[in-house]
């Protein structure tokens, strides 16, 4: 993981002291709520239905164990003993008191964690693959570049008051776990024919009211030019992005209105002015950042240790191993995904006790490192295979070994009407009910990979457009109504789902999902054909017929 130096620490402390002054001015009435709103949003503080909500950044999803303990401490001391991991590698605390926020920030700053730009119309937390640096077949560790961009986008003097929020995601694998195609800028690390590192740059992806899949704006931007190229995109956006209507202010609308060709010409012209400037990155700078990422000293370990062979007799362990353990680039090690989706609980929540215990397990079994993924699960990125049985036992005791990663109960959901002031409908209770319906592990396994994504309003924090099954809650005549789509996906083949039929009431959502799943099981050609492949092969119609036949 990246170790802050004195320079990074100084900046975070300076930001905390600035925010302390802003809170003080608000509490004394010197700042109006309207003025303070923009300032608090720059620092991840929302005013929700019941209280202030505080969103903390976990850049590119990498946490050290002491940082996870600090998050547990904040949950315990300033909140109600739990936190909620989001779809953008952030954690949210739902019950924070304004007057205590500066202290919470100061506590987090001690371990190099901040909340800068986790909301507001600026460049948000830079996200990446939660398996970065350990996934087999990666071009190189995308976190080096993520950190470079994190620094460059932090308190940017030109782009801190953009037309709307701006999100950047980076991947270095063919299989995209960072959902780069639904980001304002998506970056895919690639090598050119000379073997030099650079990026395919996508622009204009995003969900919300008007969803778009990102388009490639440039097939190869050399690594040394990536900051100037991003700067050029942002300068065009800052000047020409719409500010008259918040629903049309994202860069995706500008790209759509100008067309990708015209937009890319504008960017190219701007870029030619600034590419040979101090924004150019030389290898030494990259090496300096790389040198502050600590990589574990892996042992030489067998591929299939005795401990693993012995544990294979336990069907519960095997169910978990097959579901939650993925190959690591180093022999003898694994990546372990930790499901934050226990049956009947809100997706993505973790208690302070779980966070503390997980930090201890990370110290013991994963070189003190934890990852956070956009699916609202956690991961231990460097677990020796011989330790898997012991780790499983410990996770199981903590309620963190539900073997449902990538299965139908591994649901992404926004906080919805239970917390959020923007929501029109509840999300969490829908997710809870669905996990109960599909609680049987054999059934979930039979269904196979299937992502359900739930948003409680059109802003799409639950990424419903790109769920294999997407559920969007809206309000109609004072009632919660849910629109259901199928066929969306967020990976390298990203696509938006299609509406399957008329909206249904709160009580009917789980029934409809069960009917969709039943239709899939009847329609699939063979057990290996995944839900999304059946939908791709047959389209929405056969599903619609079966699901709505009796409605």
């Amino acid at each position, binding site marked *: 993981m990246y170790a802050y130096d004195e*320079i990074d620490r100084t*900046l975070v402390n300076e930001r905390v002291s600035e925010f302390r002054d802003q809170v003080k001015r608000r509490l004394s009435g*010197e700042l109006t709520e309207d*003025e303070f709103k923009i300032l608090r949003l720059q620092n991840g503080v929302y005013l929700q239905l019941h209280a202030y909500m505080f969103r903390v950044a976990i850049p590119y999803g990498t946490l050290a164990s002491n940082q996870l303990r600090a998050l547990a401490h904040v949950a315990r001391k300033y909140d109600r003993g739990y936190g909620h991991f989001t779809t953008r590698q952030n954690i949210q605390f739902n019950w924070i008191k304004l007057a205590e926020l500066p202290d919470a920030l100061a506590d987090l700053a001690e371990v190099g964690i901040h909340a800068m730009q986790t909301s507001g119309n600026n460049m948000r937390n830079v996200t990446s693959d939660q398996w970065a640096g350990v996934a087999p077949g990666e071009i190189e560790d995308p976190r080096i570049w993520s950190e470079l961009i994190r620094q460059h986008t932090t308190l940017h*003097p030109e782009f*801190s008051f953009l037309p709307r929020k701006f999100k950047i995601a980076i991947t270095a694998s063919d299989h995209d776990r960072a959902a780069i195609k639904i980001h304002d800028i998506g970056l895919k690390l690639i090598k050119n024919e000379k073997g030099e590192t650079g990026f395919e740059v996508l622009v204009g992806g995003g969900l919300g009211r008007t969803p778009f899949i990102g388009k490639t704006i440039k097939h190869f931007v050399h690594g040394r030019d990536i900051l100037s190229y991003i700067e050029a995109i942002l300068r065009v956006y800052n000047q020409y992005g719409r500010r008259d209507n918040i629903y049309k202010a994202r860069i995706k609308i500008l790209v759509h209105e100008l067309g990708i060709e015209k937009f890319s010409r504008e960017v190219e012209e701007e870029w030619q002015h600034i590419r040979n400037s101090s924004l150019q990155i030389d290898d030494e700078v990259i090496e*300096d950042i790389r040198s502050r990422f600590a990589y574990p000293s892996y042992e030489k370990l067998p591929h299939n240790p005795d401990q693993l062979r012995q544990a294979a007799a336990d069907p519960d362990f095997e169910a978990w191993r097959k579901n939650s353990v993925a190959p690591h680039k180093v022999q003898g090690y694994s990546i372990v995904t930790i499901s934050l989706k226990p049956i009947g609980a809100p997706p993505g929540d973790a208690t302070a006790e779980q966070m503390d215990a997980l930090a201890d397990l990370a110290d013991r079994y994963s070189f003190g490192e934890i990852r956070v993924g956009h699916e609202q699960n956690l991961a231990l990125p460097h677990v020796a295979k011989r330790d898997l049985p012991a780790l499983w036992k410990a996770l199981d005791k903590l309620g963190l070994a539900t073997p449902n990663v990538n299965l139908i109960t591994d649901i992404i959901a926004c906080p919805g009407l239970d917390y959020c002031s923007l929501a029109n409908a509840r999300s969490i209770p829908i997710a809870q009910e669905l996990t109960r319906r599909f609680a049987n592990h054999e059934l979930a396994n039979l269904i196979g990979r299937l992502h359900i994504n739930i948003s409680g309003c059109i802003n799409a924090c639950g990424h419903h457009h790109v769920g294999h099954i997407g559920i969007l809650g809206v309000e109609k005549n004072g009632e919660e109504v849910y629109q259901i789509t199928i066929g969306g996906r967020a990976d390298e083949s990203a696509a938006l789902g299609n509406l399957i039929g008329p909206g249904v009431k709160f009580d009917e959502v789980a029934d409809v999902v069960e009917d969709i799943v039943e239709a899939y099981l009847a329609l699939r050609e063979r057990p290996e054909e995944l839900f999304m492949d059946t939908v791709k092969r047959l389209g929405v119609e056969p599903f619609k017929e079966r699901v709505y036949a009796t409605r």
Partner: protein
Amino acid sequence: MPLVNGGKIVDDSFVKLAVDTPLPEGGDVLVPAERFVGEADALLKRTGKVGVIWPNNRDIAELVPYLGKIAVVALVFPTFRDGRAYSQARLLRERYNYRGELRATGQILRDQFVFMLRAGFDSFDVKKQADAEAFMETAKRYSVFYQPTGDGRITALHRRMQLRHSEGVGT
């Protein structure tokens, strides 16, 4: 609204002219863009200094032919969440080499001072007296900067390289 220039609260020598106010004989005037472009010759012939108030949705490149002759460019922040003028400011300073006074006007709070200084502003029409008085203290709030801009402040990346090289000496 107090004007901060050179870090201090100062008297503003410029009189803001509306589109239709008759042009005074002498004295410094600040003129809306529309009028400035229309009457540039007459304005620049006067003895007093001339400044222009440039809206944030008009191409700043239009000003280039006049940059050597005007004393002030005032860029507008209709609300402080509208950040277009930051780009205009950087273009003026860094691409068009404008060296005169660059004034931020509109909803200017202390919370923008550092961003504005970094973008090249050196004078500020501050909305609140308390913010104007807090200018010097607020401007010094940050000592670390991640991005290179035309203000010449050393960036974190650069500082690290210097540290690396100085540590490298003799080893």
